């Protein structure tokens, strides 16, 4: 069909005019219209077909591309990924070192053992062999697990390299190993309470989180696990001093028949805790479970130095004296009436041994007169006493960097009465932890500025709030020196180190309330050395000591805690670089040969 009539009706009209049938012409016209319609539709369909073709091309390219991506990636062992959340499990944990860089806690690569029973070739043989390698595993249980429809089970969380090799030798593809970081405390129980311990948190096949459960590990958990801060955590501890402290304290505890002991050595200027021990202790590599019976305070996990709050007794007299001296109420030579007993209502305050009816302040402390101290406290008054103890941090938990610090909350009467004031002046009625005591002694001995104990290595001295004047501090130091040179703590004398300090023997309150035991004491020595230029404060506290070498059992601190403290100082002071102040030896009899 080549020629198209310009006006379709023309032909029909012409045909009609000639009397011919218009049927053929109309049919032809219809065919033309039909052709046109088809052509139009073909055009549209062609466009849409090309669109479809493009879609197919895109889809197949995507599949080919994905194939290429997969083919160029590495194949993985068919292992079951853990069903935990999408966050990757980071097993890295920074080391913990002491002030000299010696390792306190580190990580070791070990492996965990798990099974995919679906992959096993010979489940019965595998179960037999596993039961042989790990005798504690239940053979029947293993067979049931391996032949059942379980798809995954842990067998052991940690295995040794030898055990791993043995399991490997079974040769079953259904027994698989996952790498594990094991937290290792190479020094065993040394500094156990400070380090605390760790355990596994979220666990996957390829790694497991190691999380701190107590002590420094828990307090610095986020810091230690921070993948961007993997340099070791430097503590203020000195490993050797800590070791000596624990050894001497342990022997002392045995010799003095004590059921527990704690000891602290702290720098008086920086607040760095150089050693802090609590006995009995434990091995953080194998941290025992929490006790289910008995008093938690008797558990090895209990940190007596930090969590244990005790009425520490006469060691508090130093604070009373310091407050009174600083307030200008007395000077070291002010005569105090020590005639007892002092009665207050139905209470009587008396002294343990006979002493002069009146003594200067320095002797009141040296001879540890309860009556004398209570009279000084009366001069001081409730408000000033409370404010002074508060400024030393005695009424708040310590801020030290350990997870347990907030649990060491001091206990004192809500109603701080006149009587409370008098008993607290010599250390009864206010229970604080040995660490509180250490911080308090550091503050009054270092020239009078507030010290906050810390477990992190410091670069310089703390610049704390001034609590007492330098002059008062000097007076207190000389009083404390006097206690050792001719008072109750004479056994603390260590030649060359000028130890000063104060003893405290506090009867333990009966747990059920109502009075005190007469044969159970907390014996404490709180000292500074060297007293003329103090560098360190030392606290040694024994729980229920009794010294039985003499005819009478002796429980006072002067016979129990003090000799232990002296031994600790004798051994640790040289380790900490203190030079003994020996008398200048002037050998007059030797003359130079030339003369």
């Amino acid at each position, binding site marked *: 069909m080549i020629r198209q009539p310009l006006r379709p009706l023309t032909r029909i009209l012409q045909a009609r005019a000639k009397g011919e049938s218009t049927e053929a012409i109309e049919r032809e016209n219809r065919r033309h219209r*039909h*052709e046109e*319609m*088809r*052509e139009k*539709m*073909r055009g*549209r*369909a*062609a466009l*849409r*077909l*090309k669109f*479809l*073709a493009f879609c*197919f*091309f895109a*889809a*197949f390219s*995507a*599949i*080919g591309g*994905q*194939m*290429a991506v*997969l*083919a*160029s*990636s*590495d*194949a*993985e062992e*068919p*292992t*079951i*990924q853990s069903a935990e959340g*999408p966050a990757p499990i980071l097993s890295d944990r920074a080391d913990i070192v002491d002030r000299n860089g010696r390792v306190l806690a580190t990580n070791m690569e070990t492996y965990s053992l798990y099974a*995919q029973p*679906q992959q096993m070739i010979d489940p019965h043989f595998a179960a037999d062999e596993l039961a042989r390698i790990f005798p504690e595993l239940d053979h029947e249980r293993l067979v049931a697990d391996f032949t059942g429809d379980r*798809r995954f089970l842990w067998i052991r969380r940690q295995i040794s390299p030898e055990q791993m090799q043995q399991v490997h030798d079974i040769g079953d593809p259904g027994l698989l190993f996952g790498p594990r970081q094991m937290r290792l405390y190479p020094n065993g129980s040394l500094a156990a309470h400070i380090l605390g311990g760790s355990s596994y948190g979220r666990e996957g096949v390829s790694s497991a989180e190691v999380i701190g459960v107590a002590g420094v590990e828990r307090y610095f958990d986020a810091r230690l696990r921070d993948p961007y801060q993997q340099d070791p955590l430097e503590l203020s501890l000195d490993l050797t001093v800590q070791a000596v402290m624990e050894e001497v304290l342990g022997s002392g505890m045995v010799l003095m028949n004590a059921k527990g002991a704690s000891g602290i050595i702290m720098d008086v200027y920086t607040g760095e805790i150089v050693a802090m021990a609590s006995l009995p202790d434990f091995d953080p590599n194998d941290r025992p479970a929490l006790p289910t019976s008995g008093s938690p305070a008797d558990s090895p996990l209990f940190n007596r130095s930090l969590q244990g709050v005790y009425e520490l007794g006469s060691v508090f007299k130093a604070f009373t004296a310091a407050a009174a001296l600083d307030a200008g109420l007395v000077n070291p030579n002010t005569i105090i009436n020590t005639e007892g007993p002092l009665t207050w209502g139905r209470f009587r305050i008396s002294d343990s041994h006979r002493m002069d009816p009146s003594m200067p302040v320095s002797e009141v402390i040296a001879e540890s007169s309860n009556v004398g101290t209570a009279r000084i406290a009366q001069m001081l008054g409730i408000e000033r006493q409370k404010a002074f103890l508060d400024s030393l941090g005695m009424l708040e938990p310590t801020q030290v960097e350990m997870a347990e610090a907030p649990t060491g909350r001091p206990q004192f009467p809500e109603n701080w009465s006149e009587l409370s004031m008098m008993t607290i002046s010599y250390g009864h009625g206010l229970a604080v932890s040995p660490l509180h005591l250490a911080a308090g002694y550091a503050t009054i001995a270092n020239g009078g500025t507030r010290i906050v104990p810390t477990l992190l290595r410091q670069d310089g001295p703390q610049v704390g709030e001034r609590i007492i004047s330098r002059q008062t501090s000097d007076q207190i130091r000389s009083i404390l020196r006097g206690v050792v040179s001719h008072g109750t703590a004479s056994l603390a004398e260590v030649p060359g180190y000028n130890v000063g300090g104060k003893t405290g023997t506090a009867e333990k309150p009966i747990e059920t309330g109502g009075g005190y035991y007469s044969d159970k004491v907390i014996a404490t020595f709180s000292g500074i050395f060297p007293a003329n230029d103090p560098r360190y404060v030392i606290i040694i506290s024994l729980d229920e000591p009794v010294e039985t070498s003499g005819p009478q059992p002796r429980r006072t601190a002067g016979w129990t805690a003090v000799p232990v403290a002296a031994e600790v100082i004798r051994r640790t002071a040289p380790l900490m670089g203190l030079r003994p102040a020996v008398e200048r030896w002037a050998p007059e009899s030797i003359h130079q040969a030339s003369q």
Partner: protein
Amino acid sequence: MTEMVYGAAPVRAGDPVLPRWWRTIDKFSMAGILGLFGLGMLLGLAASPPLAERNGLDPFYYVTRQAMFGGLAIAIMFVTSMMTPLLIRRLAVLAFLASFIALAMLPFFGTDFGKGATRWYSLGFASFQPSEFLKPVFVVLCAWLMAAGQEVGGPPGRMWSFIVAVLVAGLLVIQPDFGQACLVLFSWGVMYFVSGASMVLIFSIFGLVVGAGIVAYNSSEHFARRIDGFLAAEVDPTTQIGYATNAIREGGFFGVGVGEGQVKWSLPDAHTDFIIAVAAEEYGLVLVLAIIALFLFVTLRSLFRLTKERDPFIRLAGTGLACAFGVQAMINMGVAVRLLPAKGMTLPFVSNGGSSVLAAGLAVGMLLAFTRTRPQGGMSDIFGRGR
């Protein structure tokens, strides 16, 4: 006089069948399809011996079987491609009726072979899946209805075809076989699109499909589990998908070597739904890309040839067949690379399996018949070229 004495030489109506077939058939597509079939045989050699071993048969039992069915399928393809569109249409409509009845009877006479879906008739020596045969003839039926609907004064063919499509899809969902149901709806949608559906309608249909998917997800545990498995971030490596992915990784670019593959020992469907994983593991990315290229080539070439087609029936039927062919391949391979949720769908011509390969032969034969060169009223037809 000669004629009067010896009788007239027999006059043939039109050209002889074979030469005309050879002249007008799309030889490149046919070569591509034969190539796919050859690759299918090659992969069958790798993938089916483990299955034969599990079933205690001769190692190459399934290979010979596939060769037999494949030969039959090729024959069906050749014969079908020689038919005229008119004949195909008539036969296909009859075949549609037959397979529709077979599909409807499945719940009563079918078997599920322990796979949780009643899709097969067990014939003893072979199984027969009516939906495989239903797909191509359904496409032809719908194309006929739609094309008729496009004529001036024609019946409402689109509506009718839509009703048929919904019926078929409904029967497939009952089995349940969501994959085939989607494929059927997809083929219908593509034909509807090409037949000139309004864009507004297409978008509403798209929305409807999404809605249906959500309903299926919420109502069918079977379906929901597959989708969940797909959406889960971590692939469980002990599932088929996990094994397939790993096999592709193992294979790398050039494969682990002929016969060295491991995945065929672990995957129950290694010779059918996951044959691409076997190919990827043993022959590497190279062969996989070749297979993808062949499928793409056949699909695209058919679609481009159909753009020149004037006859709406041929165009629609060809479109439906080509797209069903391409999409089935796409879904199969998309599943193996985790671009699509796990769905049991064979790779046309490459996967082993009786009725699947026969149906593929039938479909491709019809596709080749529809893409044959025909006079389209253009100048080249008038001057006698391209016949």
